[in-house]
């Protein structure tokens, strides 16, 4: 039996997919194996050599090993496997850019190891350029991202408001439900629950022949069927509701009901409970005390990848609730607002992908231009809310993108005019400045005001010259891979091998999703929701959209894990801390982002990079 050098076993033990095998199985690879110092002197050892699997330990090479185009490969990459995988003959041709060490494993032992499912899956994935990563599939939390219309399948149980209490109760019994929607001419006007029958009818000795509308809860909180399960869960947790009617887009016709029981059945983790706690806070002091628990809370409860997937959403919801609470506190002390307003949030809070390091980005939308006393009210309210958020641990924005900045308190007419300005002069600097405002959501105040503004802006932002400028801007952002597919690291950092996953990768996916969404008039700011709701004709194939979704989830898992494990708020992930398979996945993700970017540039700026 031949001895195995430490450097050989170490390298193989760190090379996916073999890293997942036992040491004994891994050692089988070495039967008949060679380690080649490959240079121009002996390149014909490969070109004329036997069919084999090659694994690069060092050096940079360009290979053709299948019917596909030449590939640039370097440390950790494989070649030669397509022929063995497909049981055919592809001559391998290699060009040496930098000489280095490569392992050659015999076709026999490789074929033998291909019978192990994870090994086969890995090389099959390499061959088909797949991501080795089905982030959405293996997440425990993806159901939370589902839209209610896809989840709520049962017709809502409802009766007309003129029905007697007894008839209504009979209906609830026969349908085996604990709540009933009350309608008037088919429109939702109220809700009655088991508990209402107990407290408002039986306990009060009310006549069962009275009309049901006398005991219903009128105008209950509802949720649109276009929202996600997570949204419904957030509303229910925040308002302590056990029954939430789901309504159609217009917000009038009931289409279903979600109940706390349904949710409990699905949700086993508890990262969401913080939302319920925040909602109970009655004072700024109580709110800040709870908010400061957030990082601790996340590091304790977010353990599984599914938790990382919703952590950004939970954090954004928590920030929304803090904002609403702070506005309420202010109004309790200083009176109601002098006109309709919408509190808008931008960037990561709008997309619901905040992380621990995210600062606040917000603004105010006003129904009309305020007079000086109205302006003073909103200035003071904004100052209170922004400072309050800062006390809650949501950093003030360095770029002063906050409602406390008078330039970000616009009337609806001014906001539309502002958008016209962006569209007319989308210079590079201008895009850097306004990009963040293109992801926007109404977190508090009057959402109808916000919808009006969006509706007016939407056709402006879908103009092709504007989209072309955005596409070109994104094209200028390079993925962190060299020509030879090695990672390119951030310069000037303490650790030599970090990549800022936020600016180098997540931002690119966000940009791509945003541009397609603007083109299609999709208003939702969340990247995953955008990708899910793009219409087929916008030019991004469903498969590519799903790919981007998986990449987005994968990247976010890496940065959340980085932040929680290392107790930091940056996104500079050290590549050496990743497992071998994660490195392969990360490379594949970067390459896929690059392809999606190229396709987008072709689509929106006619290929003029």
């Amino acid at each position, binding site marked *: 039996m031949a001895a195995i050098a430490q450097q050989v076993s170490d390298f193989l033990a760190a090379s996916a997919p073999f890293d997942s095998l036992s040491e004994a199985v891994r050692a089988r690879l070495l039967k008949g194996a060679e380690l*080649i*110092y490959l240079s121009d002197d002996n390149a014909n050892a490969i070109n004329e050599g036997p069919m084999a699997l090659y694994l690069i330990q060092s*050096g940079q090479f360009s290979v053709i090993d299948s019917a596909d185009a030449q590939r640039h490969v370097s440390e950790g990459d494989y070649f030669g496997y397509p022929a063995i995988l497909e049981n055919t003959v592809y001559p391998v041709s290699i060009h040496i850019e930098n*000489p280095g060490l490569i392992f050659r494993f015999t076709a026999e032992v490789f074929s033998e190891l291909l019978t192990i499912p994870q090994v086969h899956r890995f090389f099959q994935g390499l061959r088909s350029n797949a991501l080795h990563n089905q982030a959405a599939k293996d997440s425990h939390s993806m159901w939370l991202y589902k839209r209610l219309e896809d989840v709520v399948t049962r017709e809502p149980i409802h009766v007309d408001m003129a029905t007697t209490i007894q008839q209504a109760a009979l209906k609830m019994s026969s349908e085996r439900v604990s709540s009933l929607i009350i309608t008037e001419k088919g429109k939702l006007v109220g809700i009655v629950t088991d508990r209402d029958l107990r407290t408002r009818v039986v306990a009060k000795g009310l006549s069962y022949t009275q009309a049901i509308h006398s005991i219903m809860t009128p105008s209950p909180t509802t949720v649109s069927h276009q929202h996600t399960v997570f949204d419904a869960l957030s509303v229910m947790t925040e308002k302590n509701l056990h029954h939430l009617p789901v309504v159609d887009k217009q917000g009038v016709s009931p289409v279903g009901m979600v109940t706390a029981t349904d949710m409990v059945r699905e949700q086993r983790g508890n990262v969401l409970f913080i939302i319920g706690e925040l909602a109970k806070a009655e004072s700024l002091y109580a709110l800040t005390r709870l908010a400061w628990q957030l990082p601790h809370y996340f590091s304790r409860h977010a353990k599984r990848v599914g938790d990382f997937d919703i952590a950004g959403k939970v954090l954004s919801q928590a920030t929304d609730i803090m904002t609403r609470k702070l506005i309420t506190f202010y109004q309790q002390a200083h009176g109601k607002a002098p006109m309709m307003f919408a509190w808008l949030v931008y960037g990561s809070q709008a997309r619901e992908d905040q992380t621990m390091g995210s600062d606040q980005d917000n603004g105010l939308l006003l129904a009309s231009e305020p007079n000086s006393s109205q302006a003073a009210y909103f200035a003071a309210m904004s100052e209170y809310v922004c400072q309050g958020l800062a006390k809650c641990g949501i950093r003030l924005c360095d770029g002063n993108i906050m409602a406390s900045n008078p330039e970000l308190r616009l009337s609806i007419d001014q906001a539309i005019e502002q958008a016209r300005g962006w569209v007319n002069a989308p210079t590079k600097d201008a895009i850097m400045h306004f990009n963040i405002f293109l992801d926007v959501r109404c977190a508090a105040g009057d959402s109808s005001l916000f919808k009006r503004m969006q509706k007016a802006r939407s056709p402006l932002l879908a103009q092709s010259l504007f989209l072309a400028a955005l596409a070109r801007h994104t094209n200028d952002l390079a993925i962190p891979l060299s020509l030879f597919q090695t990672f390119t690291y951030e310069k000037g950092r303490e650790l030599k091998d970090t990549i800022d996953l936020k600016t180098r990768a997540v931002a690119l996916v966000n940009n791509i999703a945003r541009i397609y969404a603007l083109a299609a008039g999709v208003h939702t700011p969340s990247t995953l929701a955008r990708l899910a709701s793009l219409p087929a004709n916008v030019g991004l194939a469903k498969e590519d959209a799903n790919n981007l979704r998986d990449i987005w989830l994968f990247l976010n898992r890496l940065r959340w894990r980085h932040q929680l494990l290392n107790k930091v708020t940056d996104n500079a992930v050290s590549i050496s801390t990743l497992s071998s398979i994660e490195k392969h996945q990360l490379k594949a993700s970067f390459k896929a982002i690059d392809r999606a970017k190229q396709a987008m540039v072709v689509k929106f700026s006619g290929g003029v990079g």
Partner: protein
Amino acid sequence: MLTTLWNYLFRGWKSTRAPLFEAPLSHVPFLAIDLELTSLDSNNAEITSIGWVAGSHGKIDLNSAFYCVVDTQQPLGQSPVIHGLTPEVLREGCALEDVINHLFDKLSTNVLVFHNASLDLAVLNKVIARLSKPRVEICFVDTLQMAVYQLKKRHSVLPEGSVTLSACRKRLMLPVAPAHNALDDALATLQLWFAQVHELGASRHGCLKKLRHTRATGRSNLG
């Protein structure tokens, strides 16, 4: 007549050693050997472990890798034949004589590769004599001397620490390898040698004889 006699007399010599020195580099079999020793003084040094690995034309045969801890207390000839070594035996160590017997034939059929040949050769010489093995003629190359040759083109005085195995590897962009295990060092040395041959551009038409000016090649008798 004289030439014929000369050829006749030295045919044996040529058939054993000259082909290795005059054969194209791409055909030469190399064997990198590393000894871990109890002392840096060859007079007192005893072998505690030994590792070797063979290769040719840039290709290293991983199945030729050998490693053994040498137990100097072990009575000679008592450990199992080398081919049947079990991991337990290797951990306990095997007798020096068995190891040298296993190595002996390879010494003359390969060009030996060392990083700092003089110390290891002196110890091998002493051991082979002590074991009363027949005298053996060897060819060797020394990666340390080759590094010195290359460095002297640029430096009149060599920088401190510039010719250690790891420093030499780093200069030629070879990956970091764990040091001070006899097999790992032998493997690292053989990789370094192949990289040096490439750096020198010697592979295509050259033979070892043409590398004599580097002072990195040599012939010697052991035993």
